[in-house]
């Protein structure tokens, strides 16, 4: 076994940028990468020439490292395109963190990008030729199966279950309404959420995140040189990634009401960061609410709520902006949007700003933010690819 603390406090984030998320008809993917990168390099006080290596993460907007080199006129330097589903954004940062922690580079750039609104589709495109399983399948349909099973396993009536999900939607819409860069910036009421048109029963319209364009960027460097750039730099404490085997839908021995991969990714990150009581030690958490049921089950997977008991914490307001452990403080995928490759970097952007006390609207800035968690994950129950990134002030 390797050393779990090998990257803890070795790498610092010294600059970040994030475009407006939304239906960005006016900006190309290149425009968004340029804007996110320049915001990050200006925030760090460096120039493009200072970047020694770069990683660009996208699920479907482009291929290979030239995707980033061309718009920014970088290089020749090492650049790699990273793809790991919805975990792409943070896995992009993970590549840079490993390279810097081992001493190969001092300063690196990480960019997450996705341009989804050029296909003409509602929802996400599919790329696979599998004659059976990918044809006409939808993400809400698969997550709806998880909701049905979760409700059934833990004795929630459909009404009770849907009310829990609606509360999450209301919370994330409220948080998004105070995020100037969020895709959706309007509040919804519990009644609106509960009576919304059904997309895939039991999930209604407000249980599903938007399809969004966006980009986000981070400049990372060796922790011991971070204070040369700024005092309020943010340290990487740990990054846990956990995959597979991915046959939960087809495994009769799997109860389909929890997230074993997400639980493992959390454990790996907590061990790296030296966290023993996540609920007490984590100040804020940015999570993957592609569908509200995902956020609900993640409370349990990340050890914030006991298994099967997320409802109690939802009803107690634990995860609201005023609660004990605010979740998706910027609106989450639900309101901020979900440009796949950019999402993880956007989550870290929100953690970074909250840790620094620089949330874009002062009324959204939380007090005493010490340790922040960001967790995007691809797939659906039984087929998850989560990645957990813990950041903190020095």
């Amino acid at each position, binding site marked *: 076994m390797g050393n779990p603390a090998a990257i803890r406090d070795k790498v610092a984030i010294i600059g970040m940028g994030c475009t407006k998320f939304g239906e960005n008809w006016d900006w190309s993917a290149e425009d968004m990468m340029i804007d996110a990168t320049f915001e990050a390099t200006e925030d760090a006080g460096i120039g493009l020439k200072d970047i020694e290596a770069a990683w660009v993460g996208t699920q479907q907007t482009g291929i290979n490292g030239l995707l980033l080199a061309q718009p920014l006129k970088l290089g020749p330097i090492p650049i790699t395109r990273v793809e790991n589903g919805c975990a792409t954004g943070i896995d992009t940062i993970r590549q840079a963190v490993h390279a810097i922690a081992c001493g190969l580079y001092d300063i690196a750039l990480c960019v997450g990008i996705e341009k989804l609104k050029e296909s003409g589709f509602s929802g996400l495109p599919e790329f696979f030729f599998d004659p059976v399983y990918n044809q*006409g399948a939808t993400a809400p349909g698969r997550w709806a199966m998880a909701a049905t099973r979760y409700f059934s396993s833990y004795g929630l009536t459909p009404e009770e279950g849907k009310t829990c999900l609606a509360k999450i939607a209301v919370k994330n819409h409220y948080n998004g309404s105070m995020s100037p860069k969020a895709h959706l910036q309007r509040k919804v009421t519990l009644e609106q959420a509960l009576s919304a048109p059904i997309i895939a029963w039991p999930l209604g319209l407000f249980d599903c995140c938007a399809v969004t364009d966006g980009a986000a960027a981070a400049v990372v460097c060796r922790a011991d040189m971070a204070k040369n750039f700024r005092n309020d730099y943010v340290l990487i404490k740990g990054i846990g990634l956990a995959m597979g085997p991915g046959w939960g839908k087809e495994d009769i*021995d799997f109860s*389909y009401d929890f997230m074993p991969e997400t639980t493992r990714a959390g454990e790996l990150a907590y061990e790296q960061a030296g966290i023993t009581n996540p609920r007490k030690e984590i100040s804020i958490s940015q999570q993957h609410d592609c569908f509200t049921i995902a956020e609900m089950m993640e409370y349990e997977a990340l050890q914030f709520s006991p298994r099967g008991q997320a409802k109690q914490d939802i009803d107690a307001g634990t995860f609201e902006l005023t609660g004990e452990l605010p979740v998706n403080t910027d609106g989450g995928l639900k309101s901020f949007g979900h440009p796949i490759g950019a999402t993880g970097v956007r989550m870290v952007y929100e953690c970074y700003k909250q840790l620094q006390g620089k949330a874009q609207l002062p009324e959204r800035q939380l007090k005493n933010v010490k340790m922040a968690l960001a967790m995007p994950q691809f797939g659906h129950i039984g087929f998850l690819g989560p990645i957990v990134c813990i950041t903190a002030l020095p």
Partner: protein
Amino acid sequence: MVGITSYGAYVPIYRLSRSELARAWAGGTAGGERAVANWDEDSITMGVAAALDCLRGIDHKLVDSLYFATTTSPFKESQCSTILTTATNMRRDVFTGDFADSLRSGTIALRAAIDAVKAGSAKRSLVVASDSRLGEPKSEYERLFGDGAAAVMVGDTDVIASIEGIYSHSDEIYDNWRRTKDDAVKMWEDRFVLTRGYELNFREAVSGIVNKYGLQAKDFAKVVYYAPDERRHREMAKELGLDKGQVQEPMFDSLGNTGCAFALMMLVAALEEAKPGHKILFVNYGNGADAFILQVTDEIEKSQNHSGVKGHLASKMQLPNYESYIRFRELMPVEMQRRPMIVSSAVQLWRSREWILGANASRCRRCGKHQFPPQRVCLGCQSKDDFDLVDISDWKGELFTFSKDNLALCPDPPVITCLADYEKKVRFYARMTDRDPEKIEVGMPLELTFRKIHEGAGFPNYFWKPSPIR
């Protein structure tokens, strides 16, 4: 002794009442209802269902040939019967043939099977007839037709109804036809069609067979015969001087005219009620006629455990309106949904045919874990390439979880995406069919049924779907 050794049938679950058809077209109604194939059914899927009904309790590997009859093949080129033999996991050296184009093709296939068994080239030959003919919207045929399939096994052991005589003739007439470019059945003026087509040929076949074997109408316990509609069926009984009890009920009110499968479905219905010693006269029409004399044996008492015609007719759901029929049969062009195009790959289908068509799960030889689709590396113990294939197509199961998806592409939303547990061994991920969206609940009993899932890549793609037990 050569004869029928087993039988089966299939009627789709949906019925459309003729009064609804009358409402849609502001016309009169003949009463009753017709069977309507679900949107994911075609002649091949109905044929697979009838074949499996016939094959209950029989080792599929013992079948030597399969003949498939239809006038509604999804293909002009590419064989249907090979899809049936692959879906039912028959031997690779099973002899296959499609019989097409004539309403008589079901009985032509039957005669070919009888001849093959008599000649010794096959011990067991399965004959499947299946049709889903389209009547022109608003036409008499739209009201009259029904969808369905029948299957009979022909063999020389355990015969339940022996073949005692055969008579056939051919005739050339344009009474009904469809050119390769036509979807709906065309017909000439009905008086000509009935008097010079059906009636002349029918009389010739009946007199031909009774004279050949020295029999009379009164010698038969049952007379099972095709007619285009109820009135012609009744009139023919009168002309032949048949007692009411001798006439096999033609199911125009409950099923409709199921084309080349119709006469065989009536024969299956007759066998369901037949007693040892019964003599049956069986006559079919289409570009000539085929007539058969069958003698029911004591073996009929041992059969059957088949759903057959009776079981399938009793299990039904009402199609709410004619608009649903329009959607099922794609009678109108509709707005394309803004969703990714459905695609497929002939390569993947070919490589995966044992599970996509054959419903084979893997069972690990080391730890016993089952998986569908089959896995080379076991999910339970990670052993490699150490498994047996197990046909799960007749397994029973229950619903584990589901969603009602309004976003997924489907002519009949919502799509019930679900996980179903079969025999507590295999968890099957697919979409449920033949279901009432208001009656879906965790734990409900399910079986598996072979369906067309889409036409990605320009060909029909078939797979198995969970459905409520019929």
